[in-house]
């Protein structure tokens, strides 16, 4: 990369992997994920928002990318979501995971957007209920409900304990 814009370069370097993981898990194909990330970073580049700190920046980027995922899922279903086992034929996704985690990823993979986004932000990214609600533009009680429903779906396959803070 040339240093045409060091800030953009840095933000892509620092956050693209994290956003890629989240969006890929939601969109379930590479092409759409790439498009969502490009739109997200383009907004960052053109808007040049001010951030209080790195955490604020990270949350903003997730929020923008989630909006983009949502827009995509809402309006366009052009590229098919690829089943996890099929995705494994071209990309290594579950290597190194134990059986339990493999099953868990498989169930998360198939959750619908509302449940999955809440699970990713809360359980994987470690955001609080309130922060997850803020990012997803919904209420804390809605997030709790989504997590509850997700746990019900996950509980069939995943034997681990998933709970949330009261």
């Amino acid at each position, binding site marked *: *990369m040339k240093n*045409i*814009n060091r800030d*953009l*370069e840095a933000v*892509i*370097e620092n956050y*693209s*992997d994290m956003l*890629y*993981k989240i969006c*890929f*898990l939601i969109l379930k194909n590479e*092409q759409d994920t*790439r*498009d969502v*990330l*490009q*739109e997200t*970073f*383009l*907004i*960052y*580049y*053109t*808007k*040049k*928002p001010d951030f209080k700190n790195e955490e604020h920046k990270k949350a*903003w980027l997730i929020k923008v990318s989630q*909006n*983009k995922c*949502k*827009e*995509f899922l*809402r*309006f*366009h*279903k*052009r*590229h*098919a979501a690829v089943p996890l086992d099929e995705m494994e034929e071209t*990309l*290594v*996704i579950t*290597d*190194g*995971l134990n059986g339990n*985690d493999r099953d868990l*990823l498989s169930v*998360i993979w198939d959750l619908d957007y509302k449940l999955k986004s809440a*699970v990713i932000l*809360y*359980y*994987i990214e*470690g955001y609080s209920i309130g922060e997850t609600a803020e990012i997803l533009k919904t209420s804390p009680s809605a997030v709790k409900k989504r997590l509850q429903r997700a746990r019900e779906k996950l509980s069939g396959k995943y034997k*681990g*304990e*998933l*709970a949330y*803070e009261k």
Partner: protein
Amino acid sequence: MKNRINKELISNIEISEDMKNTIYKNCIKGKRTADFRFRYSGVLSALIAVAVFGVCSLGASAAYVGVKARLANMDETEYQNYATEVSKDDFVSTDEGFSRELTGSEIKRIIAMERKYYDENVFPEENMAHYQTKAEMGENELAYIVADNIVYLPEKDMDDEQLLEYIDHDAKKRYVNIRELKEEGIEPGQNMALESTPLSEGSIEYKTRQAGDKFLKEYFGQELNDSWIVLVDIFEEEENRYGEKMTLGILHYYQTGTGYATSYDVYINADDMSLLSIQKGGYGSVIDSKKYTYAEAESFVKECEEIAREKVKAEFGLENPDEVTYDLEGLSVEAGKTATINYEMRFDDRIIYAEVRIEDKEILLLSRF
């Protein structure tokens, strides 16, 4: 007791260096994603208005002269109000800038009203009110509230004057946004123009546009007038999902406005000018159609599938798919209801997508891309 999911669960999902580089380069160029699927987003749709209202000549329609004059003649206070509004935006989805979503009836009326605004220069009698706080607002008023950076819509459907103010607000905000960006030295990318892509006769873009117009007329009977904007993009050596390389031509057809109206996307293999995908999209494509509950829509699945199969056979020569799956959650303006059914047909080595509008069985999407 909070997080019991293994953090390594998604550690194998990694972005490649190539993809990072591509994203970076595209951002620097201001280039949007190839298929324009994000046209509904607020900020980006605001970005693309420069060619119409800002600095470039007005290619699309003479009526824009009136709109342009209106926008260019905003007084300093009004301009600054919009500049402040733009600078405070931290949302990306249009919906987030409003106190509520538009109702189906409002969307329908806006689609019609914005053509009057842009093509016939029918403007509101007043500008949308700007208040510092919500407490200053009157009942059932339409107003931008500075403190919240939100446009508050009246609880009941907006009347015609309010709809025009809404459209006017959208146009002015875009105009100011673009002007501000230009002053910061940010040029819109080549895909961001709201005037049609200039074409030289005989070029691949020109031939692709001709093919696209032909498909549009053939499939949807859509005749184009000068209020339509047509963007043409050519991507060389583009690889499809089957690993086949081709020169990909993407055409996007739309009319200036708030983004609810019908638009079209046409994908063409520019090596032989064959059709890859054609889609009628936007709320405009379903706004007048009957909406069905998912349970009701289920009863149309077979019938619509037959129609989709016939079309696939006629257009792509493919029949007897190995597997057909359907999805009822298509584009709709009513929660829990749908106007369309989407099909995914798997053939030996191909996947075809089709979307059928239930009420009249029109095929809104046909894609082998």
